[in-house]
């Protein structure tokens, strides 16, 4: 079992994050300035954390799914559904805590649906979650009846824009979720079981792991994370936008997980590294924005990053490294 140690800080992801932040600093000298105002921190770095939180939360759930050799394409749509449920409920006069619980429960249900399709009907994860990805936005629009539902409920707005101990609420939520999930998977056998299912589902079943239950749980957790993310995004703009909430965020979440070094072929995952991946993506976004490029330029940069990672992770590159450093044993960087 991996433990966080000093050696862990030498990972390429941290180097990449530092490099991106340094580039941002060169473009915008005030990038590392942090000020204290109205009982909370302000600054570009805090902004990177804050804006990166929704994707980081999605990435935490997505990491678990990808570790079982699956993928969840529906998280963006689930975000929209959860946001729509919460907004419609507070506008309808329900107490805010009930709206939050209902939104989380709906996210959990969406995840259970995905998990049921993957396990009980034995569908490929891409297809199973595609159903909800296509239909989910329609459902969210059905809930909001096609309008952007705006609200003034202080609790929901606090989730999106409030602060706790000086840090923005989304950052606090993301951090807490990361710590709790990491403890749950690394201090218990859960992580090992997930990796076992990811490496070989039938072998895991023969070894006595109830892979169906585990898979359903993992998809339900991804739906739950998506609902949290949806609440944050909804609270942030003080309204539920069924069309645009979480649009394309599933792709960002997958990208964050891949940058974090989780193998798309299952069996190897790291939740904190996925969060770092999400921060790298957000730092790039912020950098492109403050350097004055159009935000569309983002996509080109992102694709460049994916290609770079794929080349680095590929067996071909691993072969090159192996030849260079024949003395060293092959590192665990190869995609099997």
């Amino acid at each position, binding site marked *: 079992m991996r433990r966080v140690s000093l050696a862990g800080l030498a990972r390429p992801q941290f180097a990449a994050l530092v490099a991106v932040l340094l580039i941002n600093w060169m473009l915008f000298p005030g990038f590392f300035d942090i000020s204290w105002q109205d009982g909370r921190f302000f600054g570009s770095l805090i902004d990177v954390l804050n804006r990166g939180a929704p994707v980081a939360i999605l990435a935490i759930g997505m990491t678990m799914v990808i570790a079982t*050799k699956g*993928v969840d394409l529906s998280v963006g749509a689930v975000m929209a559904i959860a946001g729509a449920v919460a907004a419609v409920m507070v506008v309808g006069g329900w107490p805010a805590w009930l709206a939050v619980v209902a939104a989380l429960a709906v996210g959990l249900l969406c995840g259970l649906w995905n998990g049921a*399709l993957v396990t009980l*009907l*034995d*569908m*490929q994860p*891409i*297809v*199973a979650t*595609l*159903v*909800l*990805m*296509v*239909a*989910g*936005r*329609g*459902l969210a*629009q*059905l809930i909001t009846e*096609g309008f952007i539902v705006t609200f003034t409920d202080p609790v929901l707005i606090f989730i999106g824009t409030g602060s706790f101990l000086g840090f923005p609420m989304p950052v606090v939520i993301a951090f807490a979720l990361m710590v709790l999930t990491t403890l749950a998977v690394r201090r218990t056998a859960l992580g090992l079981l997930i990796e076992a299912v990811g490496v070989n*589902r039938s072998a895991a079943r023969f070894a006595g792991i109830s892979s169906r239950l585990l898979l359903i749980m993992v998809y339900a957790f991804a739906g739950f994370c998506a609902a949290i993310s949806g609440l944050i995004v909804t609270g942030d703009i003080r309204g539920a936008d*069924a069309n645009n909430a979480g649009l394309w965020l599933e*792709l960002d979440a*997958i*990208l964050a997980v*891949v940058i974090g070094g989780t193998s*798309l*072929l299952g069996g190897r995952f790291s939740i904190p590294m996925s969060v770092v991946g999400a921060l790298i993506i957000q730092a790039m976004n912020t950098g492109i924005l403050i350097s004055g490029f*159009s935000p*569309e*330029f*983002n*996509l*080109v*940069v*992102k*694709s*460049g990053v*994916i*290609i770079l990672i*794929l*080349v680095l*992770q*590929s*067996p*071909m590159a691993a072969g090159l490294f192996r030849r260079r450093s024949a003395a060293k044993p092959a590192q665990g960087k190869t*995609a099997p």
Partner: protein
Amino acid sequence: MNRSLRPLAATAAIFVLAYLAAVAVYPGMFSTRVLGNFLTDNAFLGIAAVGMTFVILSGGIDLSVGAVIGFTTVLIAVLIMWVGLHPLAAFAVALAVAAAFGAAMGAAIHYLKVPSFIVTLAGMFLARGGASVLSPDSIGIKHEFYTAVSKSYLLLPGGGRLTVVGGIMLAVFLVGMLLAHRTRFGSYVYAIGGSETSAALMGVPMARTTIQIYMLSSTLAGLAGIVFSLYTSAGYSLSALGVELDAIAAVVIGGTLLTGGYGFVAGTFIGVMLQGLVQTYIVFDGTLSSWWTKIVIGALLFMFIVLQRLIFTASAPRRKVLWKT
């Protein structure tokens, strides 16, 4: 009846039933005018879906289709309006660019040994981003060639119009069927989808075929972009957003297995028509909001996947492994 034709027959039967039900509610839907509009309105989706069928038959997936359509429309608009090329020359350039793009993705999938899903995801970002870098705003295309094309059509009995873009789609489907069932390339695609390892052992040229498959998909997406540009007379970097999902849905509804190795190009045609039917019905109804389209298509997708599972578990005595590694 041949067992392997069952899903195709099921899809066709469901389309006929759905169409009859729609006609029973709105008799006006039973006309060649509506059918002609079906073909015109879904032409770009149909063309892209043919390419997607080949990709899915080989066990892969191409998420870059919609982005390539968007990129092509912008590239054509830029070449015609800013560079001053003749539309036909612009089309040739666009097809060449799309083909090269697909070949690069295919090469990456084969040589880097990464899932097609992630490579084409990068391709999607690249094509969308490239399109917005070319021009973030919509560019209108004004050219006599475009007006001539949009004015020419074949009059069908009953007053329906088979437009040029509708005709292109039908032609692409015909060529696609021939390519899938009557050529060596088609057999290679089915072989790879059945099992990559056995295909390689049988002597299928894996590198060449993989590159060709993604080249075909991107080229057809480029053609779909040309059709989209003829259809809207504009180039916009965000056009055809999410078409890859519609195309995948059409392929799945058409009875092609997402695990690869099994399916028909003709089924995809029915899948596209069924989506068109849902949209047209919602337009005819007038009281249903457009978001019902998404829900109904999602429900159809779900229904067909379950149907496929049932048919396959009923017809195959041995369990087909759907968990592809």
